[in-house]
């Protein structure tokens, strides 16, 4: 099928979302709660685009690109006035909520000048409630964190706000967080996240951290990986592989 994004005719497949087609064609649509590996939820609303169709009699609609499935002949605008207003308002609201987040400020500047200032909710939090961390943790199979409460007071937290029993210290949540809200403190031998302390497995070659002991135990129990996966760090793994190829090559 064919769709039109910002005037360009583009081929698309049944079942794809607008965002998937745009990404494949290097058309930029900002996102905050989307990640290729995870199911989309439509929470941040910054991927808003305006759609219409020649059969719709002039009717247009604002939809989230990350969720909307393409259909034959769909006409999409990624930066119409309506899109910029909607996205601008969403970002203005996020700026008020997370005034210290650089990512949000950059995105807002990119969208156009900041039009409206709202009362700042200065609780020092950079969390925009995109739930990427929760979905990443779920994908890991750990379900160590979740959302608590609702409305404006909704928070990401481990159950009962205690240090999460299921957390293996993999760091996926911190890595995926778009605003850097999740604190993770690493030393050469320890990691602290969600107020839980972990010891690292040291690389048997260089002594650098490989992964937390809990992650290792979890992976041994749940994944089928070669034994040296748990004992050498990725840098040394690479070196080993390279020398292996060197040998093969010579």
């Amino acid at each position, binding site marked *: 099928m064919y769709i039109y994004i910002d005037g360009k005719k583009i081929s698309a497949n049944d079942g794809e979302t607008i965002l998937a087609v745009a990404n494949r064609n290097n058309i930029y649509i900002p996102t905050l709660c989307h990640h290729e590996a995870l199911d989309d939820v439509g929470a941040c*609303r910054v991927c808003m685009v305006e759609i219409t169709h020649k059969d719709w009699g002039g009717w247009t609609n604002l939809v989230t690109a990350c969720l909307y499935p393409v259909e034959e002949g769909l006409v999409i605008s990624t930066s119409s006035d309506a899109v910029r207003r909607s996205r601008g308002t969403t970002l203005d*609201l996020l700026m008020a909520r997370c005034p210290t987040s650089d990512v949000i400020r950059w995105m807002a500047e990119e969208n156009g000048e900041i039009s409206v200032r709202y009362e700042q909710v200065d609780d020092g939090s950079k969390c925009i*409630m995109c739930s990427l961390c929760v979905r990443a943790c779920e994908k890991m199979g750990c379900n160590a964190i979740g959302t608590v409460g609702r409305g404006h007071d909704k928070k990401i937290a481990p159950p009962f706000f205690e240090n999460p029993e299921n957390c293996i210290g993999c760091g996926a949540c911190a890595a995926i967080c778009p605003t850097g809200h999740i604190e993770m403190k690493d030393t050469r031998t320890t990691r602290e996240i969600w107020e839980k302390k972990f010891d690292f497995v040291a690389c048997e070659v260089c002594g650098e951290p490989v992964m937390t002991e809990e992650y290792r135990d979890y992976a041994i129990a749940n994944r089928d990986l070669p034994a040296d996966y748990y004992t050498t760090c990725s840098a040394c793994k690479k070196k080993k592989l390279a020398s292996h190829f060197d040998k093969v090559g010579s």
Partner: protein
Amino acid sequence: MGIANLKKLEARRSALHKAHENVKTQVRVCSGTGCAALGAFEVYDALVEESKKAGLPVQVELAPCGKDKDPIFVSLTGCQGFCQIGPLVHILPEDILYTGVKVSSVKDIVGKTLADGQVIDKLLYKNPEDKKRLKGRADIPFYKGQELVALEGCGSVAADSLDSYIASGGFSSLAKALKMDPDQVIAEVEKSGLRGRGGGGFPTGRKWRSCVNATGDERFVICNGDEGDPGAFMDCCIMEGDPYRVIEGMIICAHAVGSSTGFIYVRHEYPRAVERLSLAVKTCEENGLLGTKILGSDLNFDISVARGGGAFVCGESTALMRSIEGSVGEPRAKYVRSVQRGFRDKPTVLNNVETFACVPSIINEGSDWFASRGTEKSSGTKAFCLVGKVVNTGLIEVPMGTKLRDVVFGIGGGIIDGRPFKAVQTGGPSGGCLGENYLDLPVDFDALAEAGSMMGSGGMIVMDDRTCMVDVAKYFLNFLMEESCGKCVPCREGVYQLHALLDKLSRGEGEPQDLEKIQRLGKEIQVSSLCGLGKSAPNPVLSTLKNFREEYEAHVNDKRCPAGVCRDITTFTIDPDKCTGCLVCKKACPPDAISGEKKQVHVIDQDKCTQCGACRLVCKFDAVVTS
């Protein structure tokens, strides 16, 4: 005794009719939530007991036993509508409505009315206008002008009795539908013009047809009984008072769309509705009205009663389905509609309680009958909860297109204490407020939407001149802010900011650009939010801003609340020309800010006054003024 087929159903009905024919007097004790809270069950027990003691032939079940001569049938019904003056006892065929009945009144009712046919004057409804006692529903303004369809059985059938429902014609509609092609059933519903009563007003027949047309090996029928609107109780009354009607509507839908599994999702706080529906489902199963081969047809259909998740947003279709599936009741984007991929990703029909309750009447009486009521694009009748500053409050049902004036001043009997009417709020928390210039508006889906409000599920709150529209908007926004699930940014952050802006106005700190800011933010929240809660959350503020702009401007420009509600910008004083020195306000003032001797003009000490408004409320002479 099961009802294996259509013939047996009719046999059962005629046996019940015969039993009914002998009944000389029917005593219907209202056991709706309001009356129950005021002691209706005790009244019922006392009535039965006392009648037995008096040697009257009471029957509590409509059993075709035929032993007694001229039996008296005493039953517990659902809400009879006029909860304000409950507990109600309605006696037929004489149409005597006893109000405010207490256990202590029972002796008289039995001795005088049931045994002797006398009407007890002091238990009758007193018309506030001329203080005259009115005997029955036919005489009382509150009931005149109403037309009951969805509420037909609520208040008349015995709420927990299958036999009572069958005797009143129950399941004859299902019998008729089963003889029709599913397609014909859908065509009837389409032709009736029935639109969803849960808020959106989506054409019900079209929804059913899309479900049939969607591909899937399994289909579901779900009844939305979440009723999260604070102050609304229509669906509660139907589920408690006429549970079999809802079930019948659902079975007809199952036949039409080809479903074998149904759910009724009942609000968390409605234990009696859960109890009555569960009992009704069980009774239907035992009698072959649910389960396999319903009434001897090929239709198999089961219903489970599910308890709501507790949050307002759980009434939203996608959140509701997630909640029944056992996940957190959070909405999802609806780019693929539920009729195609709903519960467990299968084609699903979700309809409101009242919507299902209309279906049996449509099949029985015909689509033309239904469509002849109401307006062209909003056919039939609609139940409302009439509350607020009106003289008569309660549960009502009127034809669509009835004027607001006829509801507020006819059925509602006008404003309490004869104060001026200011506005009526329709559509629940995310509805809108309409002022005096809309009093002649015909109430239907489109007229309300055009006027900037909405039908919603049928809440109707009447407001007098002492209501501040900024305050009202703030109140509803606060509710919605707390009920937002918090998933998407425009709703979670936007409604919070809208509320903050209104709060700023009510404190007298509004700036000239704030009204524009409110307007723009409201519009963006509407178009950007994920689900219906966020999309409609700005309505209370946008509609009041449109219809009562001067009041907003007074808050911003003059730092003044014209209605005298917003405390920070209101001063209470006593008008010396009007004050009679009656001491009433002095006694009512919590911080003792009022001084004055008997028969001398009272004065408010502004340093002590907390602007609570109690004095203004109690003063009979309108001497307390605000500025």
